[in-house]
C-alpha cells in the first residue's frame, strides 16, 4: 500500500493542476487545454508504459519491494507504475498552458500552442503543416504562405 499512498499525493496534485488549467481556459480562450489531446496522450503514453515498463522489469533494470506494492501487476509491472504516466499527462500540459502569458498581438508565432480554434472563427491562412496554428485574431505572418505553399496563388490581403 505504501506505493499507492505515495502516488496518491502526486496524483491529487496533478488532478488539481489539470482542473485549474481547464478552469483558466475561460480567461484564456486562445490557449485552451485540449482535453481530447489529453485523452489521446493518455492512451499513447499508457500503452507505451505498459509495454516498456514490462520490458525494463524483465531485463532487470528495476525491482520492487513486495511488501510495499499492492501486488496487482499487469504482466510484470505493478499497476501503481501507471501513476507516473498519469501525472505527466495531467500535470505537464496543464502547467504549459497555465504559463502561457501571451496576449493576442501582431507577429505572434503560429505553431506555438495547442490551440483549439473557436467555432465560427477560422485561421486567416491555410497552413496544412502541423506546426501552423490557427490564431483567429492575429494577422498572418507576412511571407509565410508563399514560402510554404507556392501553389496557393497570389497572396491574400492582410486583414
Amino acid at each position: 500500500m505504501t506505493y499507492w499512498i505515495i502516488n496518491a499525493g502526486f496524483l491529487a496534485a496533478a488532478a488539481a493542476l489539470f482542473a485549474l488549467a481547464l478552469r483558466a481556459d475561460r480567461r484564456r480562450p486562445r490557449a485552451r487545454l485540449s482535453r481530447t489531446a489529453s485523452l489521446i496522450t493518455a492512451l499513447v503514453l499508457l500503452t507505451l508504459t505498459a509495454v516498456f515498463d514490462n520490458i525494463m522489469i524483465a531485463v532487470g533494470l528495476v525491482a520492487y519491494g513486495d511488501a510495499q506494492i499492492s501486488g496487482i501487476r499487469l504482466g510484470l509491472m505493478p499497476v501503481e507504475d501507471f501513476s507516473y504516466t498519469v501525472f505527466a499527462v495531467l500535470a505537464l500540459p496543464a502547467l504549459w498552458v497555465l504559463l502561457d502569458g501571451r496576449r493576442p498581438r501582431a507577429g505572434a508565432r503560429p505553431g506555438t500552442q495547442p490551440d483549439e480554434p473557436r467555432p465560427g472563427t477560422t485561421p486567416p491562412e491555410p497552413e496544412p503543416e502541423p506546426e501552423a496554428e490557427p490564431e483567429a485574431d492575429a494577422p498572418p505572418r507576412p511571407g509565410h504562405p508563399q514560402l510554404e505553399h507556392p501553389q496557393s496563388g497570389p497572396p491574400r490581403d492582410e486583414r
Partner: protein
Amino acid sequence: MSAFEPFAYMACLLFSMFGMLMLDWRHRLFWFADPRRAAVVHTAGVATFLVWDAFGIGFGVFFRGETPYMTGVQLAPELPVEELLFLTFLCWLTMNVHTGSARLLAHRRARPAERALRAEQGEDA
C-alpha cells in the same frame, strides 16, 4: 560486445531522446515552440519525478535491479543516472504527443470552415 553492455540502456535512452529532439525541432512542439515555458515545465516535471523516486526509494518500494545493462553510475542510492535520462524522456514525450495531438485536432477542425471561408471569398480551395 560485452564492453558495451553497461551502456545498452543509456544508448536506448539517448536514441529515444534524440527522437524527441527531432520531433520537437521539426514541428516546433515544445522547446522549439517556447523555450522558456519548456524549461519551466520540463525541469518542474523531472524534479517532481525525482522527488517521487526519492520517496519510493526511501520507503523501499523500488530499487535498482541486478542488470548488466546499466553503467552503475548512481546519482543517489538506488537512483541510477539512467533514471534522470528516462524521466527527461518521459516528460518530453508527453509534451510532444500532447502538443502534436492538439495541433492535429485543431487543424482537422479548422479545415472545413476554412475551406468554406475561402470558397466564400472566391479563392480556389
